[in-house]
C-alpha cells in the first residue's frame, strides 16, 4: 500500500479541477435564504392541474438529486483518482443533497402533510421514474472499473445533470418566466446554475477517460451510449406524457428534452442525436446559466456569492489619500479565505 498523501492545492492535478472547486464553493447557497413563503398566495391561485405538475415535477427531481447525492457522486468520488478531484466531486455530492432538501422544503411550504405523503408515495411507485433510477443505479453498481466502465458511470452522471433533470425543470422555468412562483423559481435557478457546472465538470472527466480508450473500446462506448440514451429518452417521453398531460405542454417539453440531449452530446464531445429545433424562448432564457437583474425588494437573486478576501495594505490607503488609486491587478501578499 502506498503512503497516504495530503492534498496539495499548489500542485494541481489537472488544468481545471481547482477552478471548478473554487467556482462551486463560491456559489454555495442554502434554500433557507429564499423567502419561499412569498409564493404561498400564488400557489393557491394555481389550478389543480398546474399544482399537480409543479409539485410532482419537483418530487421527481428530489428523487434524482437524492440518487446523485447518495449513490452517483460517492461512486465517482471513490473511483476517480486525485485528492482535488475527489474533493470537487464530494462538494458536488453535498450540493445534490442540498437540492433534494430544497424540493422537500417546497413541499413543506405548499402542501399539507397528507398531500406531502401522497407525493412521496407517488415517487416510490411512478414506473418511469423508478425505471430511470434503477437503470442508472445499475450502471453505478457495475463492477467494471476499466476506463470504459468508468466512462459509462461518468456518462450517465452527465445524462442526469444535463438532460434527464430537465423534464422536471421545464415547468418551474416556464412558470417563473411568466412571473408565477418566482421565489421557488429562484431556487430552481440556483439549482440549474449548480447542475450546469456539475454536468460540464463530470463531462470533462469523461472526455479524459474516453481519450484513454483504444479505438475498439471507443466504438463500443459510442454504441452503448446511443442505445442507453435511446432507452432513457423513450422512458423520458413516457414520463413527460404522465407529468405534463394536465397542462398541455407535452410537445414543448419533449422538444426541450431533445435540446438538452444535444447539449449533453456537446459536453461529452459526441455527435448530437437530434436535429436542432427552437425551444420555448421563455424557458430558454430561464436556463441561461447566469445571474439575473433583480428587483431587490421581492426576491433574493442568484447573483450573490462568496467574495475573495484580500487585505487592504497601507500602501493602498496612502495611494488613495494622496489622490491616486492602487493598482488592483497587482495582488497584495496576504490573501486568505473568508472564515465565515
Amino acid at each position, binding site marked *: 500500500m502506498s503512503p497516504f498523501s495530503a492534498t496539495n492545492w499548489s500542485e494541481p492535478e489537472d488544468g481545471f479541477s481547482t477552478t471548478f472547486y473554487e467556482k462551486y464553493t463560491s456559489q454555495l447557497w442554502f434554500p433557507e435564504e429564499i423567502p419561499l413563503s412569498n409564493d404561498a398566495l400564488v400557489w393557491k391561485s394555481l389550478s389543480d392541474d398546474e399544482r399537480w405538475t409543479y409539485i410532482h415535477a419537483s418530487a421527481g427531481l428530489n428523487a434524482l438529486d437524492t440518487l446523485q447525492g447518495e449513490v452517483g457522486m460517492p461512486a465517482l468520488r471513490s473511483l476517480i483518482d486525485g485528492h482535488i478531484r475527489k474533493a470537487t466531486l464530494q462538494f458536488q455530492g453535498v450540493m445534490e443533497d442540498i437540492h433534494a432538501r430544497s424540493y422537500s422544503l417546497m413541499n413543506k411550504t405548499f402542501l399539507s402533510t397528507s398531500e406531502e405523503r401522497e407525493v412521496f408515495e407517488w415517487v416510490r411507485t411512478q414506473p418511469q421514474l423508478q425505471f430511470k433510477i434503477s437503470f442508472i443505479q445499475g450502471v453505478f453498481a457495475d463492477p467494471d472499473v476499466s476506463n470504459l466502465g468508468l466512462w459509462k458511470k461518468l456518462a450517465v452522471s452527465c445524462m442526469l445533470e444535463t438532460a434527464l433533470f430537465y423534464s422536471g425543470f421545464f415547468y418551474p422555468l416556464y412558470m417563473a418566466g411568466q412571473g408565477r412562483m*418566482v421565489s421557488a423559481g429562484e431556487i430552481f435557478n440556483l439549482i440549474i446554475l449548480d447542475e450546469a457546472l456539475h454536468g460540464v465538470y463530470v463531462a470533462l472527466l469523461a472526455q479524459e477517460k474516453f481519450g484513454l480508450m483504444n479505438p475498439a473500446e471507443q466504438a463500443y462506448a459510442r454504441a452503448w451510449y446511443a442505445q442507453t440514451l435511446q432507452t432513457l429518452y423513450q422512458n423520458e417521453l413516457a414520463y413527460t406524457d404522465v407529468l405534463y398531460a394536465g397542462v398541455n405542454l407535452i410537445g414543448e417539453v419533449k422538444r426541450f428534452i431533445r435540446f438538452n440531449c444535444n447539449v449533453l452530446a456537446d459536453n461529452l464531445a459526441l455527435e448530437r442525436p437530434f436535429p436542432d429545433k427552437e425551444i420555448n424562448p421563455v424557458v430558454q432564457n430561464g436556463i441561461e446559466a447566469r445571474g439575473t437583474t433583480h428587483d431587490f425588494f421581492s426576491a433574493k437573486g442568484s447573483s450573490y456569492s462568496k467574495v475573495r478576501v484580500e487585505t487592504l495594505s497601507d500602501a493602498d490607503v496612502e495611494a*488613495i489619500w494622496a489622490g491616486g*488609486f492602487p493598482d488592483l491587478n497587482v495582488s497584495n501578499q496576504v490573501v486568505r479565505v473568508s472564515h465565515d
Partner: protein
Amino acid sequence: MERWIELNNKVIAGNVVQPQHDKDALQVYFQEKVNPNTVFFHDLKEKIRYLTEHGIWDASLFERYAPEDVRAVFERAYSYKFHFQSFMGASKFYNEYATMTPDRSRWLERYEDRMAITALARSEGVEEALELVHHLVTQTFTPATPTLMNSGKANTGRLVSCFLLQDCTDNLDSITKTLSFVAELSKGGGGIGVEVSNLRARGESLRGIQNVTKGVMGVAKMLDNMLRYADQAGQRPGAGAIYLSVMHADFLDVLSAKKIASDEDSRLKTLSVGATIPDMFMEKARLGEDIFQFYPHSLWKETGQEFSDIDWTRDYQALADNANICKKRVSARRVLEEIAVTQGESGYPYLLFEGNANRVNPIANVGSIKMSNLCSEILQPTLPSYFHAYGQEAKDRIGLDVSCNLSSLVIEQTMHSGDIGRVVTAAIGLLDNVARSTSVTEVPAVKRANDEMRSIGLGAMGLHSFLAGQELIYGSPEALEFVDVFFAAVHYHARRASMQIARDTGFVFSGFEGSRYQSGEHFAQYLERDFTPQGAEIAALFEGHALPTRADWQQLVSDIQQHGLAHSFVMAVAPTGSISYVSHASASIMPITERVETRTSNKARTIYPMPHLSADTEWYYEEAYDMDQRRVLDTVAAAQKHVDQGISCTLFVPSTTSTRALQAYYLYAYRLGIKTLYYTRMRKTNLEECLSCVV
C-alpha cells in the same frame, strides 16, 4: 402562453440580440391584450361620470375645474400621440399604474388618462394643469410611483411611500411604537428606514439585571417579520432598512445577519442594513488602528447622552479613555473588511459617511444627519421622539422624521425640451403640491416634519442612455462636465422655484432662520465661478437652454435672504426602477448593467433592450460591471456637489473582485465627498467565461 411574452423573450433567444422582436411584442401586447381589454366610453363626459360614480376617480376633483378646462387637459394629453418605446415600459405601466376594474380583468384608464388625471389632481388651476400634463405626457420628468399611481383616485393611497423613522429609542414603549408605525406605513406600501443605534447592545443590563438584553438583532428580527406581514393586501411585502452606527457594539452581529451561512434564527431575510460611519472611523481605518465599539446603555448611564447624539470626532477619545463605559476593541480595517465580505455575499450594508453628509448639511441648525432611507438618497436631519405608556401620552415628545417626496427628470427629454428652467419649475411645483397634499397622521413625527420642513427631492434618470445617444462615454471628462453643468442648472432652477413659492405664498420652512441657505454659505461655490460648459461639445448640447451665471446666483441668494425658501431640501437622486422603464430611460445616473436586461420580478421575466440600442450606440453602452468603478464614483461626485441631499450610488463589480477592491472603492468614494453608497452588485462569472479560462 401569451404571445407577447414569447416574442419579448425572443429578443435574446437567438445567437444575436434582436431588439425588433421587442417592437413586435409591444404591438401584439396592445393588439391582443390592452386594446381588447379596455373599457370603452363614447366620450370624456361618460368616462368621468362612470369613473366617479364607481368610486374610482375623486369626484371633488371635477368640482374644482370647469368642464371645458377638464376637457382641455385631456385633449392636451391625447394631442401628443404618445407611444411606448418598449414592451417593458408598456407592460410596467399597464400592470402597475393604470387603474383596472376591481376584478383586474379590464383597464379603465389609458396612459393619457392617468397623466391627465394626475395633472388635474396635482394642480390648482387650469393653466398649471395644462403645463403639468405637457411635462407628464412628454416625460420631461416623472413623479415617483405612488404619486403617479394614486393621484386623482377616490380611495387614494398615499402620494409618498418612503419614510425615515428615528423613533426607536431605547425603551419598550418606543420600540413597540416604532413597530406599529412600521406596520402602518408598510400596509400602504413603500420603504421605511429606521435608525436603531440608540438601542442597547446584546448582553447589556435591563433594570439592573446583567446580560439579559437581546440587542439590536432582537428588534431587527421583529421589523423584518412585521414588514413581511403588512404586505399591502398581498401585493408586495414591505421593505425596510435599519441604520446602525459602526461604533455600536452590535454592529458586527447585525452585519453577520446578512451573510449567506448564518443560521435561520440570526438571519435577516428581507430587511436591509445600512452602516453609518463617522469621520473618526475612517481616520482610524486610514491609520490602520483599532477602534472601540460602545455599549449604548452603559454609555448613557455614564454620560447621559443618546448614542446617535454623539459627535464621534469630538468625543471619541474621552469616551475611549473612560473606564466606566463598556466597549470592545476591534481593528477599523477589519470592520471595513467585514463590510466588504458581507457586501460581496448579500449586497448589503449601505454605507453612510456621516462626516461627508454633515459637513454640507445646509440646516445644521435643525439637527445632524444620522440616517438615510431604503435607497440611501435621502439625507436630512432627524430628531428622535420619546413615547410613553398608555395614559401618559401627554409626556410624549414628537421629534422629526422624514417622508420622501420624489420625482425624477428624464435627462434626454429635459435636454430636448430646450428649457431646463421650465421643466424644473414644473417639477418643483408638482412636488410642492404633493407635500401640501400629504398628511401622515399615523406617524406624528413624519407629519410634523412634512408640515414644518416640506422637504422634497428632485432627481434625474437616463444619464447613460442620454450619453450613449450623444455618443459620449459614461464617466469620461466630457460626460463629467455635462453632469456638472446639468446638475448645477437643475439646482439653480429648483432653488429658485422654492424661493418663489415662499415669496408667493408666505410659507417658509421652519429652520430657515440660522441655516446655511440664509447665510448664503450653501451657495458659495456658485458665487466663485460659473458652472457653464467649457468645451464646445458640451456647450452644443446646452444650446438654447438658459444656464445660470454667477450674477443669476447672486440675485437668487439675495432673493432667498429676502423671501426664504419653502422647502428644507429640494434635491435627491433616487435609483429609479419602474418609472425609468415607463420613461424609456436608463436607471438614475448609474451606468447600465446589461445592454439587454433580463428583469425578474413578481410580475414576470421581461427582456429589456436599452433605449435606442443599435449597432451604432452599442459601443457607448459599456456595461457597469466592465467599468473601473471610479468612473461611476466620479460621476456621482460631480453631481453630488449640486445635490443638497444624496444620490443612490451602486457599485458594480465582477465576481472575481476581492474585498480589497471594494474597500479601495469605499475610501475613494469617501475622499471624493460622496455621502452614501447604496448596495454593491456582483456579476457572477457565467459558465462560458469560466470555461474559457480553463479548457
